């Protein structure tokens, strides 16, 4: 005999899903509206109708002609890729050293690393800016990238978990085979970390791509800056050209959406495996 369920019980999943649908709509609506608006001619911008009677690519043409979008995307890509690669190098070396070479100091060091996550970035930004300025790195790639390598705590913590999950016997076997510590890292640990490294790299890449405050401070010059800053400069320069602005915003989102489409699975997997959700 199956138990008779209270009729309200059956409604619970319905209520849950309805709530989620509302939340998703609330989150997706502005994005979709921006996308739709970017195809509207200037006189339809303020119209409530989602689709214009005369959709146009004028906004895109204008943006591509007047705005150095390729340069800005290039700058942003160099920054995001540089930070991702740099953080991975630091985090891999750190995680490997912590797990395999410092059994005693690992605990305290990991606590410090975790604490560093709690320091608000705003508290660090003035000293970091002063140092960057004194190094003469304003308006350079180095100024955009190097200071952002310090905030690699999350990458370190994630990779420590994955290095720990590799069987100890693998590294022991490699040592018995005569591998130096670096060879153990290169031939045994790195191949085992490949999925985790991909996930962390993509995560850092996306976060850095969306970074606003730091590029605004160290690289404000129009031709050296990133798309995020470029967008505000576009807005300031073009006044109330919302069609153009939203076209520009759509263009700058495309790379990150592409990256995410390819990578979302890996990112979720890496977080699930490490037990951090």
């Amino acid at each position, binding site marked *: 005999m199956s138990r008779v369920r209270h009729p309200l019980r059956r409604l619970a999943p319905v209520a849950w899903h309805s709530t989620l649908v509302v939340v998703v709509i609330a989150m997706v609506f502005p994005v979709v509206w921006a996308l739709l608006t970017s195809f509207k001619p200037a006189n339809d911008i303020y119209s409530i109708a989602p689709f214009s009677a005369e959709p146009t690519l004028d906004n895109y043409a204008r943006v591509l002609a007047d705005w150095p979008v390729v340069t800005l995307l290039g700058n942003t890509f160099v920054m995001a890729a540089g930070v991702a690669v740099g953080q991975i190098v630091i985090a891999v070396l750190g995680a490997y050293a912590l797990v395999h070479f410092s059994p005693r100091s690992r605990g305290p060091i990991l606590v410090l690393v975790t604490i560093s996550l709690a320091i608000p970035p705003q508290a660090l930004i003035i000293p970091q800016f002063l140092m960057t300025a004194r190094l003469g790195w304003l308006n350079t790639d180095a100024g955009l990238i190097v200071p952002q390598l310090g905030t690699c705590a999350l990458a370190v913590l994630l990779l420590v978990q994955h290095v720990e999950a590799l*069987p100890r*016997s*693998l590294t*022991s*076997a*490699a*040592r*018995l*085979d*005569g*591998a130096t510590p670096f*060879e153990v890292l290169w*031939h*045994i640990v790195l*191949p*085992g970390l490949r999925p985790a490294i991909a996930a962390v790299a993509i995560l850092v890449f996306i976060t850095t791509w969306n970074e606003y405050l730091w590029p605004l401070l160290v690289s404000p010059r129009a031709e050296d800056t990133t798309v995020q800053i470029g967008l505000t400069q576009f807005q300031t320069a073009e006044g109330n050209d919302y069609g153009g602005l939203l076209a520009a915003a759509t263009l700058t989102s495309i790379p990150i959406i592409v990256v995410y489409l390819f990578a979302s699975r890996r990112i979720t997997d890496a977080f699930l495996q490490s037990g951090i959700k």
Partner: protein
Amino acid sequence: MSTITPSTPARAAARTGSAELRLEALTKSYGGTIALDAVDLHIPAGSLTVIVGPSGCGKSTILRVLSGLETATSGDVYVDDVAVTGQAAGDRDVAMVFQDYALYPHMTVEQNISFRMRLRARHDRRSGPSRADIARQVRDVTGLLGLDELLRRKPAQLSGGQRQRVALARAIVHRPQVLLLDEPLSALDAQLRASARTELLRLHREIESTMVLVTHDQHEALSMATHLVVMDKGRVAQSGTAEELFRRPGSEFVAAFVGSPAMNFADTPSGRVGWRATDARILGDAERAGEGFAVEGVVDVVEFTGDCRHLLCRAGSSTFTIVQRDGEAGMRTGDIVRAVVPDSLLHHFDQNGNRTHD
């Protein structure tokens, strides 16, 4: 499953020297816990030495110290009278097979086996092995272990038995003087374990290197060892041939650990005695005990093992086990069993559990 049937050149190539190992006052502690407590141990050259003991007795730690993966807290390790205590793992002529086999998952069987030699070639371009050397040695060992068909496979595509043989191949390909095996059979199912045991014994005969095998399975230990070491709480309880340890256990611990069913113990006015379940003769109804140690109890459980029955008996608050062979009167639960153990087969122990008399 293929068995080891090497061609003649493979056999010749696989031959290797063997080394004698010696541990002197070896202590290993992790923080406050002592894993090895001043262990003195001699492992004869060319032997198949089996180290056996309950979990946590330090047997795996001995392997890790012998291999150089762990450094001893104090004491020394000698290979053929040369102290290697401070030597790095890769510099010792020692190979190891891990309990989980530790095959490099992203490398093929061939790459797994040749990894050590490829590293050597890279480290030392002049005196390291050439590509042809590596290929030849890999061929020799895969022929010896019947892995020729599997060279291009990844470990994930292999069965448990195949993985074990790849791990063995990787360990012996450079003909080490000493081969360490950490519970190499425990990951296999019971049927495979029996044939793998036979293969290991054959392999020992073929390559002639000193083998040190660690296990918690006393049956495996007794059946394979040319030299048997029983460990307890970080110390060597006794070492010698399997037969010596079985016939003349030096302590109650060894007596209870080695042999199945476990030895029976009883307290008598003259001290504590032990006797093996197979050494008691069950008496007929009218038969008198005569000379020897007499036992009497009630049959509690009867276990049929195929060629004999194990009678688990109760006598007051204590229990004992007797093996009943064919031809002796069939016993059932509730029957009273009387038996006698000849004095010559009794083992006497003092209060500390050490063997007394002879």
